[in-house]
C-alpha cells in the first residue's frame, strides 16, 4: 500500500473551476434555464470554497471583471459587441460566438491555467451548450500545445439538444468529457454516438423552505379553483399547452370548476393555445401588472379575473409569487413532451406542490409517490389523475410531503458533491498526481 489517499481529493486547495456559458447572472444574459443553472452552479461551487471563474456574455454596462473579494469571479465577455446588441445575450449571436471562440481560450490559458499550475492547482473547465463546444476544443488544443493539457479537466455539458448540428462531436468527445443533465438526455445522445456522464441540475437551498401557509391560502382563496391548476413556461408546442387546456375543459365537463393560472413568454404560439381554449368554451382573462408586487397586489389582481377559466398572467412573476402558486395549486402542469431535466417540476416539488410531469428527463419524479408522471399526451390522463387526487386528499398530502423530501436531494450543494466525485474519476483517468 502506498502512502496517502487512494484517490486525489478534490478540494479548494488543489482545484479551481472555470464555467463557460453564453448565459449568466446579469439580466442581459439571463434568457432561460441556462442562465439560472450557471448562476446557481457557480455560486454553489464558490460556496463550497472553490475559486470559480464564470465567463459569460455579460451586460456591456457592467464591469468586465467582477470579483467582489469573493471566490466567484465574473468575466463578462464580448462587451464591445454587446454594446451593439442591447436586446440580450442572443442578439448578435454569430458575432458573439466568433469573439468568444477566438479570444476566450488564450485568456483562460494565460490568466487561469498558467497561474493555477504554478500554484499546483488543477483547473476544471466546464463548457455549457453548443455555443462553447468549439471553444472547449480550442482550449484543449492550446493547453496541449503548451504541455499543460494533463493538468486541466475539461467537461462539456449539454442541457438539451438544441444546436447539436453545429457541434463536431468527434472532436469534442476526444478533447473533453461530455456530460448531460439526465439519463433521458444520455440515451438521446447515444443517437449522436456519445455516451455522456450524467450530472443532474439542482435547485438552491432557499427553495426548500416552505412558503408561508397563510399566503398560500390567500392565493388559493382568491383564485378559488376547483381544482386550481398552474402552468409556467414558454408558449411552445413542446410544453404541451394544448394538452393542458384540453384537461381544463375535461375537468369542467366533469362538473368541476377548474381555474387555470398560466404564465407564458412572448412567443406567438400563445395565440394558437388561447384559440384552442376558446374553441373548447373556456373563457380567458389577461391579468395586467399588479399595482404592487406583494401579496396584496397579487391578490387584488387575481380577484379581478371575472370568473375566467384561464387566468393569463401578463406580468413578470417573481420567485415568491411563483412559489405561492406552486404550493397553492392542486396541480402544477409541468407536462412537457420533451424535457431534458425539468427544473420547474423540481421547483414545484421543493415548494410542496404536486408536479404533473412528462416522462422524459424528470427522473426525480415517481408516479403517485412524489408527483404525477404522465405516460401519454392524452389530456384525459391529467383529468383522471386529478380526479383521483380529489377523491383521495390524504394521498395528495403524502405526495406533497414526499416531493419536498425528494427535492432536498437535488440541491446545488449535492450536485457539487457529485461533480467532485466525477472529477476524482477523471483525475484518476488522467493520472493526475495525488
Amino acid at each position, binding site marked *: 500500500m502506498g502512502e496517502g489517499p487512494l484517490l486525489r481529493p478534490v478540494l479548494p486547495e488543489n482545484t479551481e473551476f472555470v464555467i463557460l456559458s453564453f448565459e449568466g447572472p446579469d439580466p442581459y444574459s439571463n434568457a432561460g434555464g441556462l442562465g439560472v443553472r450557471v448562476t446557481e452552479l457557480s455560486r454553489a461551487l464558490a460556496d463550497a470554497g472553490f475559486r470559480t471563474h464564470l465567463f459569460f456574455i455579460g451586460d456591456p454596462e457592467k464591469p468586465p471583471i467582477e470579483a467582489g473579494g469573493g471566490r466567484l469571479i465574473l468575466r463578462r465577455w464580448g462587451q*464591445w*459587441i454587446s454594446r*451593439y446588441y442591447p436586446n440580450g445575450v442572443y442578439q*448578435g449571436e*454569430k*458575432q458573439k460566438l*466568433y469573439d468568444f471562440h*477566438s479570444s476566450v481560450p488564450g485568456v483562460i490559458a494565460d490568466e487561469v491555467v498558467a497561474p493555477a499550475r504554478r500554484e499546483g492547482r488543477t483547473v476544471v473547465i466546464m463548457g455549457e451548450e453548443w455555443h462553447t463546444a468549439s471553444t472547449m476544443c480550442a482550449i484543449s488544443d492550446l493547453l496541449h500545445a503548451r504541455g499543460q493539457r494533463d493538468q486541466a479537466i475539461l467537461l462539456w455539458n449539454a442541457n438539451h439538444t438544441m444546436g447539436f448540428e453545429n457541434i463536431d462531436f468527434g472532436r469534442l468527445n476526444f478533447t473533453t468529457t461530455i456530460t448531460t443533465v439526465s439519463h433521458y438526455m444520455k440515451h438521446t445522445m447515444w443517437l449522436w454516438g456519445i455516451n455522456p456522464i450524467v450530472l443532474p441540475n439542482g435547485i438552491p437551498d432557499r427553495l426548500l423552505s416552505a412558503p408561508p401557509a397563510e399566503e398560500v391560502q390567500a392565493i388559493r382563496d382568491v383564485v378559488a379553483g376547483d381544482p386550481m391548476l398552474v402552468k409556467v413556461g414558454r408558449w411552445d408546442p413542446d410544453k404541451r399547452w394544448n394538452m393542458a387546456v384540453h384537461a381544463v375543459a375535461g375537468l369542467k365537463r366533469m362538473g368541476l370548476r377548474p381555474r387555470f393560472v398560466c404564465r407564458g413568454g412572448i412567443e406567438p404560439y400563445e395565440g394558437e393555445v388561447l384559440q384552442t381554449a376558446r374553441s373548447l368554451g373556456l373563457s380567458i382573462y389577461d391579468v395586467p401588472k399588479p399595482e404592487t408586487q406583494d401579496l396584496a397586489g397579487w391578490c387584488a389582481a387575481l380577484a379581478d379575473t371575472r370568473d375566467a377559466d384561464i387566468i393569463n398572467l401578463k406580468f413578470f412573476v417573481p420567485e415568491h409569487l411563483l412559489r405561492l402558486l406552486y404550493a397553492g395549486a392542486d396541480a402544477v402542469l409541468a407536462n412537457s413532451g420533451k424535457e431534458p431535466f425539468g427544473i420547474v417540476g423540481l421547483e414545484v416539488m421543493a415548494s410542496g406542490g404536486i408536479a404533473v410531469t412528462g416522462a422524459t428527463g424528470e427522473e426525480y419524479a415517481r408516479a403517485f409517490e412524489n408527483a404525477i408522471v404522465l405516460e401519454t399526451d392524452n389530456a384525459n390522463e391529467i383529468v383522471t389523475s386529478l380526479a383521483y387526487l380529489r377523491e383521495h386528499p390524504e394521498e395528495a398530502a403524502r405526495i406533497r410531503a414526499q416531493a419536498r423530501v425528494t427535492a432536498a436531494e437535488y440541491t446545488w450543494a449535492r450536485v457539487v458533491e457529485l461533480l467532485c466525485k466525477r472529477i476524482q474519476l477523471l483525475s484518476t483517468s488522467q493520472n493526475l498526481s495525488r
Partner: protein
Amino acid sequence: MAEHLVTYTVVHQPRRIKLPAQPIPHGATPEDIARCLFDERMNERYLHKVAEYCYYPATRMFLEMVQEQDFRLAIGFSLSFLRQAQMWDPDLLALMKKLVAHENVELVCVEPYHSFLFYMDIGLFIERMKKTREELYALFAKRPVVTDTTEMFISNDIYFALDQAGFHAAVLDGREWVMNWRETTHLYNYAGKSLRLLPRHYKLSDDVGYRFSNKGWEGWPLQAGDYAHWIREAMGEFVFLAWDYETFGEHHSRDTGIFEFMRCLPGELKFRGVQPLTPSQALERFADRVYELPLPQFPSTWAGSGGSEFFLGNSVQQAIFQLMHHSYNKARLTGNPELIDLALWLMQSDNLHLIQWFGRFGTEAEVSAYFTPQEWWSLGPAGIANDMQQVYRNFIVALDAYM
C-alpha cells in the same frame, strides 16, 4: 559593359486580414470594423518573426556595406510596414532610420498600403503618392524623388500618374514583353515626358531574389565574384537590381550564406570596376542618354511572370478583385474618411498575391503559398478562398449602417 550598379530593395509587411472572417456587429464603429477585418495579433507576431530573422540582421548588414564599403542602396518602405514598426518595434524603426540617414542611401517612395488603388481610382492614387512622399520626408528627413508603386506595377496610365505626381523617375521590371529588343541597362522615358524609367534587370535580380538558395539551379552555390562578373559583363550603362528586403534572412535563411554573399559583393564589384550608384546618381550621370520605351497598356509587374495574371489569374482572385471595387465604392458612398481608409487597406495586393496558388501548381504557386499565413491552412484551400471573400462581404454589409 556595365560599369555601374544601382541596387534597390523594398520593405513591406501586409496588414493581414482575419481568417476565419469575423462577423461585424451591425452599426459597428470604424474602429470596431477594423478589429473584425484585420488580424493585428498575427501581424504583430509576423513582424517580430521577420524582424528577428531578417530586418535586424539585414539592416545591420546594409549599414556596414554603406558605411565601410561605400556601397550605394535605394530603399523603399510601405506605410503598412512603417506603421507596424512604429507600433510594435520602435527600435527596428530607429535602426532603419539610421540606415536611411546615411548619404549613400536613397529613399524611394512606394504605394503606401501596397494596394491596387491605381486600378480603382487613379486620381486618389496620385494624391496618396504625393502625401506619402511628404510622410516619408517627415519620418526620415529625406524627400523621395524616385518612386516604385505596388509590386513594381507600371503601365501607360500609371506612368502618367507618377509623372503628374511630380517624381523624377520610376522603376519597372525589365521583362522581355515590355522591353522587346531593348536592354534593361539604360535610362528610359515615355512620350517625351520628364519621368525617367529605371528597368530592373530581372534575370540578375532573380538570381539572388529567387534562385540563391535553390540547390537545383545550375548557378548554385552563387559566389559574389561570379555574380559581380555577370553584372560587369552585362551590356549597357548600368545594371539595376531590385529585391524584396525580406530576401535577406527570410526568403533565404541565414544558413544559405546570403549575408556573407552580400558582404563580399562590394569588394568583388570594386575589383571588377563596377561602381555602385543611387538611383538619383544614375539619373544625373546618364541624363544625356535617355531612350524612349513604349509602355504597355496592360501593366507589368515584378511578380510572377511579369503580368497582372499573377494577381488576377484565377477565379478567386477575380472575385476578390471585384469585392475590392465594391468595398471601395461602398465606402465612398458613405463619405466617411475612416471607412474609405479601411477600404484602401482591403485593396492590398497581398490579398490577391497569397491566393494565386488556388487551382494552380508550380513554382509561382509555391511562392504564393509561401506568403499565405500558416495559420490559415487549417481552413483548407476552399475555406481560405471562401473566408477571404467573406471578409469583404462582411465589410460591405457593415457599411449599410452608414448609408
